[in-house]
């Protein structure tokens, strides 16, 4: 194989990976259903890591009664959480370790189990726990995530595979503009 062919293969591989990363998230943004999720206060010691904010949702901690599985889930397992719209936010109803069958008005969001305490609760991450922010803009969001004077909610796009992407942050129902 000539050097030119080798380099071309390498460059094409890199471009495929980059386009794939962009395409994967963009597909979810374009085709996903927007839902509003309620956030919960975060431990202020772990709030900032550099220039991004850690977000925690009500659906990040699931009571074990919601998980409808016989076998005990373990760390690293994928979990599919079925959501139904409440008054304002989407709430979890059930959760399964495989793709569930949905009824009308339901969607599912895919997550990964981070920890599981038998008969108590499971902590789940959905890939939407990080939000990058410009420098100096974090204080407003920080206060909102702690629920000090305002409340933070997040609009998330969820596609038919359960993959999710953050679309917009809201503080007291007003969209947050950071740029």
């Amino acid at each position, binding site marked *: *194989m000539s*050097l*030119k062919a*080798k*380099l071309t*293969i*390498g*460059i094409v*591989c*890199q471009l495929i*990976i*980059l386009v794939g*990363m*962009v395409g994967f*998230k*963009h597909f979810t943004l374009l085709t996903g259903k927007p839902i509003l999720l309620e956030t919960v206060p975060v431990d202020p010691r772990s709030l900032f*890591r*550099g*220039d*991004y904010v*850690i977000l925690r949702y009500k659906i990040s901690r699931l009571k074990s009664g919601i998980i409808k599985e016989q076998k005990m889930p373990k*760390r*690293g397992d994928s979990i599919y959480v079925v959501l139904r719209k409440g008054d304002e936010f989407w709430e979890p109803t059930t959760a399964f370790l495989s793709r569930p069958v949905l009824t009308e008005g339901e969607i599912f969001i895919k997550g990964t189990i981070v920890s599981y305490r038998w008969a108590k609760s499971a902590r789940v*991450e959905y*890939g*939407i*726990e*990080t*939000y*990058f*922010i*410009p*420098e100096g803009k974090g204080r407003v969001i920080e206060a909102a995530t702690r629920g000090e004077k305002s409340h933070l909610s997040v609009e998330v796009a969820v596609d038919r595979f359960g993959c999710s*992407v*953050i679309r917009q942050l809201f503080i007291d129902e007003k969209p947050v503009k950071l*740029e």
Partner: protein
Amino acid sequence: MHSEQPQGRKSSEQFRRWMRCEIVLWKKEGLIDSNVSKKLTERYSDESGERLTLSRRLVVITSILGAVLMGVGAILFFASNWQTLSPLVKLITIFIILLGTYFATLRFLIVKEGYPVLGQALLLLTCFFFGAALWLIGQVYNYRGYFPTGVLFWTLGMLPFALTGCSSAVLCLASVLGGVWMGMDLLQFDNPNAWYLLLLVPLLGVTYRTKARFCLTINLLGFSFWLGAFCAPLIDRFTMVHFNEGMLCLFVYLCLGIFLYCIGNLHLVSPSAKSMGAPFRTIGLLTILGVTYILTFRSLLEEVGYNPELFIKMPPALIATLITCWSLALASTIAGTLISKRSPEKPAHTGWELGFLILLLLTAPCYLLLPSSLIMVCLILFNILLLLEAFGLVLLGLCRKQPLYVNLGVATVTVLIFTRYFDFSLKLLSRSFFFMGTGIVLLLIGGLLERTRRHLIQRLKESRNVS
């Protein structure tokens, strides 16, 4: 036997090389003494070649350093949030920069053939920019802050360049990042990812093909770390009760260390593969020394609560696994020694080496059977064992003219002395006297050991020059 004098000018490379060989023969035959030999060697040294090698090295180092600095700068630049640009503009900018780098790399590596070193440096820069692009895209779409998959993507993106032998620097970077991904994934999920082996196998293949010893060392370190992470939960799953997984892991690591060392010896079977044995021997020795060093700590041994009932309850599958590890180490020891003896190198004292390795293997099962009543005896024996290993390495290094063995041996003795000093002095002396006294003792010991090490290395060099 004298070779035929090459025809041509006196200053030609061939003539110089011929002269250097003749000078060695003249000295052996006693026609000239060391002084004259040295002067003649200097006169006919490969000056132009050395100058060329030096200047080439300078170009390589400068280019690679420039590429690394640019790459790090790019990553830092991209890592800070771009406040004024929209996500779309950010993406377009990064793709334009990346395509520009690809173009420059192709141009200097293929079109303009007179700049191979610059082309290689640009290829490395391309890989850094690719990493920067990954993290920027992650930032735009709010991928996780802790993103081991990003490191995996970075490694996979470099893999075609690494596997096709385009650049040894890229191969090294891919090896390092593969290990980093494995470590980050392990931290996230507590279990080692088996896909790391799938990544490791082709990297090892290319490492051998290109004789990249540094990359081989990195990959062996990654594999050793992976194996330990693999064994610990496996042992945990096997045992129904807590059976002191630490000692079982140490047993497995000792077998691994001996296995790797003997694989290094097996490389002596072929002159072309000989040089690739050194990383195996190095990692193997470090593992063996590391395991023995850990066993010299009282706190660790005191945690071992020997309980015959627990040992009897050990599942057969676990016992079979441990026996398999031990047998593999034994088989590699015997094979390695046989190959060493039959190789053209014929390293010195292979018998002593074999004996010592067999002794280590025979004592290894004792780690699992330590009776709590004999803890102090075991502690003393392990300290003596470590000293024997260290002195054995120094002697072997002197006999085989291997500075690495000497350095490892001296370093082991140094670390052991310092550790034991801290162990005992901290308990016996008040804090202020401890720190002052320790400082003075450390300075003295450090100076003494450095002098001893230099003396040993000097002796090695002199004996090499003579031969």
